[in-house]
């Protein structure tokens, strides 16, 4: 292989590194079929790549030093907020987050406890903790009730399923046809649609930090897609986003991949909500 000319040597590398334009890669494939020396060079490069990757892959799973985590800890306001718990299991339903009867009056809705409203630091902290929790493989203990469950927007079950809690759950359950149950809650619900399993799914935003898609399953609203930061729709501070609000391209792609049929209009949302979002 040392006799290989410079041009071929660079081509082998670029081929293995996925840097050849499609047409060149196809032509290279054809050469590989009839030039054993070239095929051997490719095999060697692939093997080297694999060996390097498997040599360094274990670093990804090593415990993260506390000093590094501390550097990225949630600053200032969020640090002073009450601790945010990633629930091992969704807290048991309470009067506050139990779905209201479909015919509940506006007055009854307005009377929802204030505890369901909270400011952005908690949301931000939740978003960040969620990332951290998922990332560093935090093993969440199972089975215990979460104090202050009403400050949760998202909870992670031991199996990794993320469910909507608190105000997010309330909004997903009740905000239909442009009606906002709790205008102070910094959550928003956007589009609704049915997925390939005929489940109802809805897009949501958590403050301006995060956005995602949750689908109604028997156990609640299970998050199917979640994104943070620059992927989240830019917009005014908090508040409700209408169906026409700008959604990130990745979120739109996710919707298109998931949906069966068109997104629901206001009337269809109301009908689905009256039916308890069941299939």
């Amino acid at each position: 292989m040392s006799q290989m000319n410079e041009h071929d040597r660079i081509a082998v590398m670029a081929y293995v590194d996925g840097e050849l334009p499609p047409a060149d890669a196809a032509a290279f494939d054809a050469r590989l079929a009839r030039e054993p020396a070239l095929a051997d060079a490719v095999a060697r490069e692939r093997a080297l790549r694999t060996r390097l990757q498997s040599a360094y892959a274990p670093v990804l799973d090593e415990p993260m030093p506390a000093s590094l985590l501390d550097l990225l800890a949630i600053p200032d306001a969020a640090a002073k907020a009450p601790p945010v718990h990633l629930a091992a299991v969704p807290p048991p339903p309470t009067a506050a987050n139990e779905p209201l009867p479909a015919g509940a009056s506006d007055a009854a809705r307005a009377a929802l406890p204030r505890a369901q409203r909270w400011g952005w630091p908690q949301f931000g902290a939740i978003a960040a903790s969620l990332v951290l929790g998922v990332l560093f493989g935090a093993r969440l203990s199972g089975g215990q009730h979460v104090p202050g469950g009403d400050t949760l927007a998202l909870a992670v079950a031991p199996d990794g399923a993320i469910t909507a809690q608190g105000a997010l759950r309330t909004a997903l359950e009740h905000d239909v046809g442009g009606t906002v149950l709790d205008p102070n809650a910094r959550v928003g619900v956007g589009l609704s649609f049915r997925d390939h399993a005929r489940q109802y799914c809805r897009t949501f935003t958590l403050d301006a930090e995060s956005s995602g898609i949750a689908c109604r399953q028997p156990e609640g609203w299970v998050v199917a897609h979640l994104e943070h930061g620059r992927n989240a729709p830019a917009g005014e501070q908090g508040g409700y986003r209408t169906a026409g609000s700008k959604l990130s391209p990745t979120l739109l792609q996710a919707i298109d991949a998931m949906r069966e049929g068109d997104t629901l209009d206001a009337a269809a949302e109301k009908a689905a909500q009256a039916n308890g979002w069941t299939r």
Partner: protein
Amino acid sequence: MSQSPLALRAEIAALLPRLRRFARSVTHHREDADDLVQIAVERALKHLDQWQDGTRLDSWLFRIMKNAWIDEVRARGRRDEVLAPEEAGEHVGFSETGSRDIRLSIEKAMARLPEEQRMAVSLVLVEGLPYKEASEVLDIPIGTLTSRLARGRDALQAMLGDGHLAP
């Protein structure tokens, strides 16, 4: 620059495992690697406003790490020979006795590469960066990157012996 610092922090946190991996291959030393990540993340947090929305955050952080490491190497170079491979003439054999031995011999072989080749190999072969991104991280033209990659790969193949048929 619409990205909020909090969301950026979360994204940087998400990249920490990869930053550590890159640091390990560059410094070939566990403590040095975490020190390097620490320094780089501190710098990044201080200059969050310099990250341009729409560019890759990982590349930006790798670039900060590269610069921090070059500073460190320069500072050390005058004091001692920390970076000189300890057994310069030794042949690095490819051991079949266990995955840990395999890993060590690859790390040793990487440690013997010149700094510039090691970074190129690490960014492209380990971190999977496209040539364009890697060349920007290293502040070099793509042609220079590919020639460093070629030399680095040849040297590794030579040091690691004929183990290419092993899994």
